[in-house]
Structures are given as C-alpha cells and as structure tokens.
C-alpha cells in the first residue's frame, strides 16, 4: 500500500444499549459491525477507493435488520419505511444524496448513482424513486423491511405526536 489506510463505522443502537441486551444480541451486533469493517477494509487493502469502501461498509449495515437503515429501518406514522442516504468524496467534492425513498434495498447506492449519473446532489420522494427505476434499482416488497422489534417500537407510540430516535428510549414530542 502507498500510505496507511483506515476506515471507521457507526451504527445506532435501536434503543438497545449495552447492559440492556442479551449476550447473543450483543454478539450479533458485534459480528455485523466487524463484517462491515472487514468488507470496507478489504477494499482499501486491495488499493480500492475510499468511496467504494464506505459504500460497501454501509451496504453491509443496511442489509442487517439490527440497524436503523435499509432492511432495519423503523416505521413511519403511516406504517411505511422512509429512508435517506448520502455519500461524498473528498477528492473533488462530488456528492449525492437521496431522501424519503421506500422499498430501496440500499439507499446509499442510489445516492452514489445520483452523484455519478445526475447533475444533482439531492433527489427526494417520488422523483428519486423514478430515478432509481430508470437506473435499474429493484424494489423490495414491504415484507423485506418488516421486523417485529421495530414494529413493537412503533406500536408503543403509534397514533401519538411522539416520535423516537433510534439511539434513545425517550419519546420527546418535538425533536426526538
């Protein structure tokens, strides 16, 4: 390698903080986090780009039901899943982002395609969905995003004005 390479990742806890989860659950979290790190790092080790590495690491986390992104996305007030993602490279300040999309397996990859194949930085909602279809993104069934734990999280505050951040048990009325 020409110079040192490094990668870091983060994931919210989905209200499960250390000390409140079973050893089995903690093991699952650790294994998924390690897999994301390893997949990203293996790209860097082969002289791949930082852009490829961060996209791959996030895809691993999006594909897990444990984290609030992609497959593990929480429920909206309407019982749907709305996802947001962004990606940016430091070399030339290129950026792409997507908001309020549904049924997209890996929103981070859609953000990257927006960066690389559109003149825009942020696409949202139905327009972003149309763009995704145009570029061959497959839509998953709603069942793909169903998770019993997330569903029960939603049931606790459904039909209220409360909303809840994924890393907190609080039910603040305005800012999560």
């Amino acid at each position, binding site marked *: 390698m020409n*110079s*040192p*390479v*490094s*990668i*870091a*990742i*983060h*994931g*919210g806890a989905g*209200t499960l*903080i*250390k000390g409140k989860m079973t050893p089995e659950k*903690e093991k699952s979290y*650790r294994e998924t*986090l390690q897999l994301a*790190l*390893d997949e*990203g790092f293996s790209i*860097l080790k082969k*002289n791949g*780009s*930082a852009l490829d*590495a*961060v996209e791959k*690491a*996030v895809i691993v*986390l*999006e594909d897990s039901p444990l*984290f*609030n992104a*992609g497959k593990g996305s*929480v*429920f*909206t007030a309407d019982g749907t899943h*709305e*996802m*947001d*993602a*962004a*990606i*940016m*490279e*430091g*070399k030339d*300040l290129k*950026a792409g*982002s997507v*908001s309020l999309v549904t049924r997209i397996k890996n*929103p*981070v990859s859609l*953000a990257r395609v927006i960066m690389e194949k559109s003149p825009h930085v942020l696409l*949202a909602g139905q327009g972003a969905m149309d763009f995704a279809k145009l570029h061959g993104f497959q839509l998953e069934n709603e069942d793909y995003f169903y998770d019993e734990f997330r569903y029960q999280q*939603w049931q606790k*505050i459904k039909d209220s004005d*409360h*909303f809840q951040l*994924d890393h907190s048990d609080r039910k603040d009325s305005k*800012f*999560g």
Partner: protein
Amino acid sequence: TVGAVACDANRNIAAATSTGGMTNKNWGRIGDSPLIGIGNYANNETCAVSCTGSGEFFIRGVVAYDLSCLIEYKKLPLKEAADEVIFKRLPKLKGDGGLIAVDRSGNITMPFNTEGMYRGMRNSNGENKIAIYE
C-alpha cells in the same frame, strides 16, 4: 443511522451515511443524514465525516461542515475539532449524538455525547476495534 468514513492508499477520503429515520415520523420529515454538510461531508483538505443523532440539531449546527471549517480555518487537529463540535457546540443547541471522522493521514476520531452509540474502526497499523457504548 449508520455510516462510514475511510481514507484510501491514494490519500483520498470519503463518507457515507444512511438512515431509516425516526419511529412514527410524518410530514415528510428528514433529518441530517441525507443533507450534505449537515450529517455527511468529505473534503480531502480537511476530513470526511458521518453524523448520527437528533437530526434537527445537526441541521441547525451545520455540524459536518462546521467540523471541516474548524480544521480549514482554525487549523485545529481532527480530534480537537471534532470534540469542539460534539462536546461544546452541539450541546449549546441542546443537541445530542455523535460523529465519526477521518483525515487524509488516516487519523480517526469518533466522539459522541449520548448513549447507545456503536462504533468500529480498522487501519493498516493493525488496529481493529468494535465498541458498544452505554
């Protein structure tokens, strides 16, 4: 919310962030994650950063770009700049959360000011850490 930042062998850096939002959100609410300069930013001259936390406060604080500016204009080291943002500036807005950031020398910092943060880092010096913070 999940995210990643990386520095490659050509000393280019990048950031990615993805979220499923907040439970029971409505009205088309979006947080900081898809907003460039707020929850995600990368600039080879400063750092790559991905944020997680209460999105409304990150939007008000323009957090990711604020970190980059502290490095660019105030010449702060990565860790010092990130600590300034998470432990001083964000609390002034009554916001909570954290970030991960890397610079083109491969330095990593991962500050946060709230519970339930999951973190991981790996580099070519052999460091490989996973941490779940209370």
